[in-house]
């Protein structure tokens, strides 16, 4: 038996710490990071992360220090003769390490209770915006009650105003998550959940379904465009306008194809097309992405989608319509004219 060896732990634990440092330092922040908050909710949640992580790191370092020290100091030696002192316990010590964690938990509980009520209560008062979010396999429907505006996969919100979301699902459970604006809340069939968020600065924020909802779960993304309140109001008015213009021959052909193939499922404001199975396509051309964040909203992206939707997004409800190359081009032209 080769028991009498020096412990190797002091080699490996710094390794882990170094690895963490490399990861944190080397990767930078992605575009959907909880660590770069853009609103008060995400900010509060990040402050809770820092508070708990700081306290917990101290505890970890204490444990690690005692641990590593013990391994080095009290390792078995060839010279060991007698048994070590047989200690069975110490009431004082055991009480101490019961009480100290309790104190820490009291501290963390106060923060928890404070923010649970502050963040968990729907906001009221002047300037709050209501948005109804409906989750579908695998796309997002956003409705602005009282305005008649309905859109999909790109949410518009005014900067500096609290937004109350009422969250519902049309099929299975989804979860609405925009990490830079705040934590997630589930959309549960048979229930309406509430969540409020606020963007402090204008920008495009990325969101994604966070609850397993089927084969297309990874492809259920959306974007949030936070604009100045004036721009936001302008957008709402714009969305109510009759906006469809099909002028070129390709666009006109696309309109006809749309009527024939797409109108039973999709709505476009200002046309007689009022299908509700698929996403509302009003002003589609103004969205940065299509297919719930799966493809860029370009001619190529649209064409790729129309060629075979389930190949782009697993489990997509929109079938392969068997469109010819020419038909796809016409439809792309029509869709790109939806402004």
């Amino acid at each position, binding site marked *: 038996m080769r028991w009498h060896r020096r412990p190797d732990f002091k080699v490996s634990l710094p390794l882990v710490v170094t690895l963490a440092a490399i990861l944190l330092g080397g990767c930078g922040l992605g575009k959907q990071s909880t660590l770069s908050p853009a609103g008060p909710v995400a900010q509060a949640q990040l402050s809770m992360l820092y508070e708990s992580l700081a306290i*917990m790191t101290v505890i970890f370092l204490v444990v690690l220090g005692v641990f590593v020290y013990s391994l080095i100091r009290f390792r078995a030696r060839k010279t060991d003769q007698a048994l070590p002192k047989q200690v069975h316990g110490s009431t004082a010590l055991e009480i101490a390490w019961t009480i100290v964690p309790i104190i820490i938990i009291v501290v963390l509980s106060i923060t928890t209770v404070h923010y649970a009520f502050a963040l968990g209560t729907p906001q009221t008062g002047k300037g709050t915006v209501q948005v109804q979010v409906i989750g579908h396999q695998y796309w997002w429907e956003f409705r602005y009650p009282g305005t008649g505006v309905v859109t999909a996969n790109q949410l518009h919100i005014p900067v500096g105003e609290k937004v109350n979301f009422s969250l519902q699902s049309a099929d299975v459970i989804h979860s609405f998550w925009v990490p830079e604006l705040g934590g997630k809340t589930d959309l549960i069939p048979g229930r309406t959940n509430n969540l409020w968020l606020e963007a402090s600065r204008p920008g495009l924020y990325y969101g994604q379904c966070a*609850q397993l909802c089927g084969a297309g779960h990874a492809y259920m993304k959306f974007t949030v465009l936070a604009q100045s309140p004036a721009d936001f109001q302008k957008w709402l008015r714009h969305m109510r306008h009759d906006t469809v213009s099909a002028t070129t021959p390709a666009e006109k052909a696309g309109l006809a194809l749309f009527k024939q193939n797409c109108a039973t499922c999709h709505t476009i404001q200002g046309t007689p097309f009022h299908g509700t199975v698929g996403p509302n396509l009003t002003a589609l051309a103004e969205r940065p992405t299509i297919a719930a964040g799966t493809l860029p909203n370009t001619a190529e992206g649209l064409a790729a989608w129309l060629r075979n939707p389930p190949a782009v997004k697993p489990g997509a409800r929109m079938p392969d319509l068997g469109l010819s190359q020419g038909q796809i081009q016409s439809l792309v032209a029509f869709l790109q004219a939806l402004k």
Partner: protein
Amino acid sequence: MAAITERVTLAHRQAPSYRGIWAWIASVDHKKIGIMYIYAALFFMAFGGAEALLVRIQLWQPNNHVVSAETFNQLFTMHGVTMIFLVAMPILIGYINAIVPLQIGARDVAFPRMNSLSLWLFVLGGLFMYTSWFMGGAPDAGWFNYVPLSGGHFSPGAGVDFYDIGLQITGIGTLMTAINFLVTILNMRAPGMRLLRMPMFTWSALITMLLILFAFPPITVNLILQMMDRLFHANFFNIPLGGNALLWQNLFWIFGHPEVYIVILPAFGIISEIIPTFSRKPLFGYESMALALSVIAFLSFMVWTHHMFADGLGPIVNTIFAITSMLIAVPTGIKIFNWLATLWGGQIRFTTANLYALSFIPLFVIGGISGVMLAMAPADLQYNDSYFVVAHFHYVLFGGTLMAALAGLYFWFPRIWGRLLSERLGRWNFWLVFVGFNVTFFPMHILGLEGMPRRISTYAPGYGWTTPNQIATIGAFILLAGMLVLLYNLISTFLRKPDLEQDPWDGRSLEWSIPSPTPEYNFAQVPLIEDRDAYWVAKRQGKELPKAEPLGPIHMPSPSLSPFFLALTIVIAGYGALLHVDWLALIALLAAFWQIGLQLVHEDHGYHVHPDVPAGGAAE
């Protein structure tokens, strides 16, 4: 009038003897059953590990298409189901089977045939679930199997039926294990072994079995409700007809949270055996360790909605469950500090078993830290269902449970198999696993904070997720290398001649007090226990353990094939229900009940092993 005429007659015939594989199938010996549990758990671990590797390969780079999204969902679902139900629990139940009766000075468990039934329900139930891969696809709605996604409308294939029926089958077995070991530990301790003299592993087994007893019925009911929905078109989870999606979540987590303690408390027990042994000191704060186990078990039933913080249950519910969840850190902290105090002032030997046991401490503390962070409900809304959670529970389940299971394997291997595993290979095994584990799972904390949701089959570039994912995938292959070294160590050790060392580690509890290999009756004479760590104390005093009885005939239970066939019948009923072959399901169910009935009137009082010396001759 027939009064009670006959006394219980002892069957003096020898037990029916079975040969070869049948000797194992018919065995009611807790030691053999324990070995079969461990083998089966390692077998399923290979599959669960392969599934994990495929998941890691798929996530190697953005927009990867090594497996389809549908296959990906099946892979992580089966990975979770396998690792929890077919690896973590069975390997721990295997150790409990192999070791607890020895630790309490018993000759078997209370219900040896039922023990065999538990084993076969687990093995056959697990194989049943794995046949789903060849029968239209594995379950794909996550190990948590939330409705309505897992309902018949959104998951029309048979995958979820395999989940529902397979987990019911293995679950019945687990529940019977709980009854069996509760009675065994409460009733069959050697004379003088009061509860507060039991080894800590036995304590952890006792508390774990209580958790199983109360946690498994809710999941069984949940699975029954979903089976009614899926097979008979009931409406428990059908929202338009009055069903409720949250009912599943509540029942699932009322089971699910105690379940994580079912797989961690025995791990605590293993650590509490190994650290004192290799520090040559008694466990520090024994009473507070036992109390902490009990408090954790009690609290574990009051924290389930912390898995549901994003369900919108409101700030009142969320804060109550946040605080109860954080409270679990108190008894857990007591355990950590008591282990540190056990190390303090000891003579620490760095065997492979101890390396694994020691690594448990920092890894489990990291998992505990993220656990407390997750318990803070408002902040959890950012972590929930992200890779942060994946990192957290792998630190407690892999860094905790599996490290302890591997510690236990190296520690008890000489007791269970009569051989010592190679320490040289053990070191390679440990360091590869330890490094591979951290390289795999530490980056997942960062992925979660960077906004990567769980269970996504792929991701786009530009999110900052690629590098951590690639590091994690590399780590998974280091882990694979570590597990292959373990496999090589096992095979080469089995090819060696047994060394049959009785007490290679200078052990403390009764399992080391008997010859190796362990006789089928365990103890020729049941010892009399006058101390905690009685065997250790006797060794130090240079004495034998006192005996509680004279040498005499020893009662042994007869081996039996009936548990195996009962389990097989139940699995056939499962296939019948799943394939909608109603007559087969019905006949198999009736046959199962008939066999249960036969067990209820069964009369076989086993046989006796007689000592070579005349009865009473060798009494002290």
